[in-house]
């Protein structure tokens, strides 16, 4: 049986795209790329309005996209085993840099998040860890029998918790939260028993108030207070949430129209082009605009999960799912925060919000997913 004949008799999902497909040869997953480009185009469309019709702002955002796409394209060229090989080293370097950040990092807005690397510029190690942490967890479970033993779960948790604590100390609660979740997703994928999951949920429910009273910074505690009761200080801390809910609610079903959102354009809505850009979309394009965005997100996440489902090795499968869910958590936390379901933590709306290194990190992780999908050995 020639290899072509072998491929032909496989079910289509195992066969992969044919060789005629240029994208496949470039190690690009066309549906995923199409989904990402749609989200980005939609994002630029909203950013034009949210940023006050500033073309320069769009140009800078476009530059970031370009850098991100380059990273994605480059990473997609490597087979998954390369990532697997470099994972422990990457994690180790990331961990050291996180410690360095706390020692000699650059401080901005009351948080110490950046490292200055000579010849490279400012760098945010926590972004690296968004990939390295789920990667190491996946790397770890690759050699372990599944479902994981209690000891393995403990080791995996350590892999997750240590960097999360270091990041939380910067403090950067949003990123720490994302990293913890991405690690936990790997654990869940690896078959963590439902009983432990149940126990963990119960534990968090008890521990959360303790965290609030004993370990949180004042500014973090204020955010929680504001979340629980924004009306207590409508002109101060509660302002953001009240204004963003007002923006969303006043948008209605079909919105006020592009460039016509009063909340954002009259500056009632803070951070309207960054963390709160979702409220601009909701105000101007209404529920229909939101449903379109959610559909695009669901398509991208679904595609990523599909890629993971069909990935050929355990590492790829776990890492792919972990990265996909991290992306989803971005959406959940941001939308939850802007619509008043979750406390305010600085998490951008992925691929829509202006600025942030997160665009590059996110696109890099999609590069890994594309690599997973386009480097399949015929042997299975």
């Amino acid at each position, binding site marked *: 049986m020639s290899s072509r004949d072998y491929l032909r008799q496989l079910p289509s999902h195992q066969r992969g795209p044919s060789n005629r497909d240029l994208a496949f040869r470039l190690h690009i997953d066309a549906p995923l790329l199409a989904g990402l480009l749609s989200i980005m185009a939609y994002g630029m469309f909203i950013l034009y309005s949210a940023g006050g019709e500033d073309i320069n702002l769009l140009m800078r955002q476009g530059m970031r996209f370009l850098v991100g796409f380059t990273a994605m394209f480059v990473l997609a060229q490597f087979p998954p085993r390369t990532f697997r090989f470099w994972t422990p080293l990457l994690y180790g370097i990331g961990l050291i840099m996180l410690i360095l950040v706390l020692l000699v990092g650059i401080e901005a807005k009351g948080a110490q998040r950046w490292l200055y690397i000579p010849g490279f510029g400012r760098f945010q190690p926590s972004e690296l860890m968004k990939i390295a942490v789920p990667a190491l967890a996946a790397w770890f479970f690759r050699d372990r029998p599944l479902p994981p033993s209690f000891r393995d779960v403990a080791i995996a948790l350590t892999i997750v918790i240590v960097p999360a604590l270091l990041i939380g100390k910067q403090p950067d609660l949003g990123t720490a939260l994302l990293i913890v979740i991405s690690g936990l997703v790997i654990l869940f994928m690896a078959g963590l028993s439902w009983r432990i999951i149940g126990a963990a949920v119960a534990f968090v429910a008890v521990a959360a108030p303790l965290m609030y009273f004993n370990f949180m910074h004042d500014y973090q505690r204020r955010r929680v207070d504001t979340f629980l009761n924004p009306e207590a200080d409508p002109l101060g801390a509660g302002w953001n949430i009240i*204004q963003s809910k007002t923006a*969303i609610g*006043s948008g209605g079903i079909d919105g006020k129209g592009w460039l016509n959102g009063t*909340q954002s354009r*009259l500056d009632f809505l803070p951070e309207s082009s960054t963390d709160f850009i979702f409220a601009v979309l909701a105000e101007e394009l209404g529920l229909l605009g939101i449903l379109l965005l959610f559909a695009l997100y669901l398509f991208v996440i679904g595609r990523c999960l599909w890629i993971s*489902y069909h990935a050929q090795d355990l590492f790829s*499968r776990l890492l792919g799912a972990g990265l996909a869910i991290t992306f989803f958590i971005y959406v959940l936390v941001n939308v939850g925060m802007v*619509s008043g379901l979750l406390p305010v933590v600085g998490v951008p709306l992925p691929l829509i919000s202006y600025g942030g290194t997160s665009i590059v990190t996110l696109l890099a992780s999609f590069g890994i997913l594309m690599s997973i999908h386009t480097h399949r050995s015929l042997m299975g």
Partner: protein
Amino acid sequence: MRLRDRQRESQIIQTRLVWTLVFVVIVLGALVSRMIWLQWVQHDRFQALADQNRVQTQPIAPPRGVLVDRHGRILADNQPDFSLVVIPEQVRDLDAALNGLRELISIDDDQIERFHTQLKQRRRAWEAIPLRSRLTMEEIALIAEARHEWPGVRIEAEAIRHYPHGDLFSHVIGYVNRINAEDIAAMDEATLANYSGTNFYGRAGIERQYEKRLHGKVGYRKVETNARGRVQQVLEEIPPVPGDEVRLNLDLDVQRAAWDALGSRRGAVIAIDPRDGGVLAFVSRPGFDPNLFVTGISLPDYAAYRDDPDRPLFNRALQGQYPPGSTIKSMMGLAALEAGVTDWQRTIRDPGYFNLPGTTRVFRDWKRGGHGVVNLHTAVVESCDTYFYDAGLKMGIDHIANFLSHFGLGKATGIDIQGEMTGILPSREWKQRARKSAWFHGDTVNTSIGQGYMLTTPLQLAQTMVVSARRGKQITPRVAMNTQPPQPKNHLVLKNPDNWQRMEAALADVLHGQRGTARAAGRGAAYRIAGKSGTAQVFSLASDVEYKKLDVAERLRDHALFVAFAPVDNPAIAVAVLVENGESGGSTAGPVARAVMDAWLLDGKGDLRDLSKPRLQPDKGATP
């Protein structure tokens, strides 16, 4: 074995992947339902909130009606004023900004304190608080140059009241000043809404009396503002209805003539046209500059007025109560004729004093040695006290009180200015009530020459002349034109109306006769004047501590009074003049009255003008 493991492991992960997808869909569903809640179910509420954010209804204060004199000349109007305002939300360090501004322009502690009071009060975010008003052009330039250093500091224009004649009309027109919490508390709902954009409120005089007409009706402007309160666009506008122009009976020239005639002396002049009750002049000297009060008088300025021994804030014409002295003798004479205790032929011998029958008590005539043989006519012309002591005692206090009440004494004249004092028209009942004491004959004797308990305001004295000129027909004095005040009905009808004419002849001889007490005032007049001089004794200074510093002898002199109306045969003006410590009614107060009457009655060539026509061409010189 290993291969089997792998398959099982793959299955675990794939099952979990399916669970993950389910989780993603459920969570997205939850987010969508949140959006449906906010955007569909709660849409109206949030729409309203967004509009509340964005749309502001700003009241537009109506322009206050201007005040003009009877010929249309402006007595109070509105002028743009530039004030320095601060938006605290835009200022990073408020204290530093205030100190910096104080280095730039003069701002006193008082204004800083007022600023802080307003800052503490509950207010809208991003609302400007005034810091200093009445910026000069130089100050505006200084601030404009430095405005980049002071974000949140702005110059705003507003229309403020302006009194072009300063203190000339201060006691009649009054003034407006900043509306305060008490004014607002006293308003009903509708009035409050009408005042929502108004910063000023009539505080005294005509400004207070006609506040309602002068104010107008508030307008509204719906504007879209951004989060910093800056107006983006006007959505809708209902213009305000300006306040009415209120035309006053006052005549600028007559007022000024009265003011100038008083000169630097303290006193009051009231001139009323007896034909319609219109107040032509209303002067109380010294006055004050009402412009100082409009945007809030400074403490030093206020202290200067308050501590001035001449009491410039005291409205002598309306609230000063003085014994009328001899100015009421014509009315006493008519009362005596009406009572039948005397007639025009009857004479008495005046030895220079009056002995109260049955007692040893002696009441002196002002003229040592007496006037000799006098009848009623000469008693009026020469102001013989003894004649009136005798007549007063004969007719009795009850008749006097009743008769004089027809001339408006002892009660408010009803002029359209608030705060009028009523004076005292003494009677048995009054003394019993006020002094808890019986009436004695001696009281009657004192009353008959306008001394004793009797007190009148200069306005009331002018009103006695109005009633005299109208031969007993009363009319309410009015500062504003075209108002219908309630008119009194208890007109005085004499049994013998000829007595009016004979008394007018006597009063005319006061100015034009050989022996009249006010000959000086009547000399060279182009018309005949009926008038009467008077002096009011100054009893006590005990309550006026400030007098210590002054020439006490000057302050102990009698007050000079003069009342008159003219022309005698066709009265067109009634005047009362008070000169504090002026001593002689005839020679001090009389010429003041003459100057006022000349201003009203003469034409440009010094002849009596045609009194049936307005003194000036309608609205001549009305253009501001």
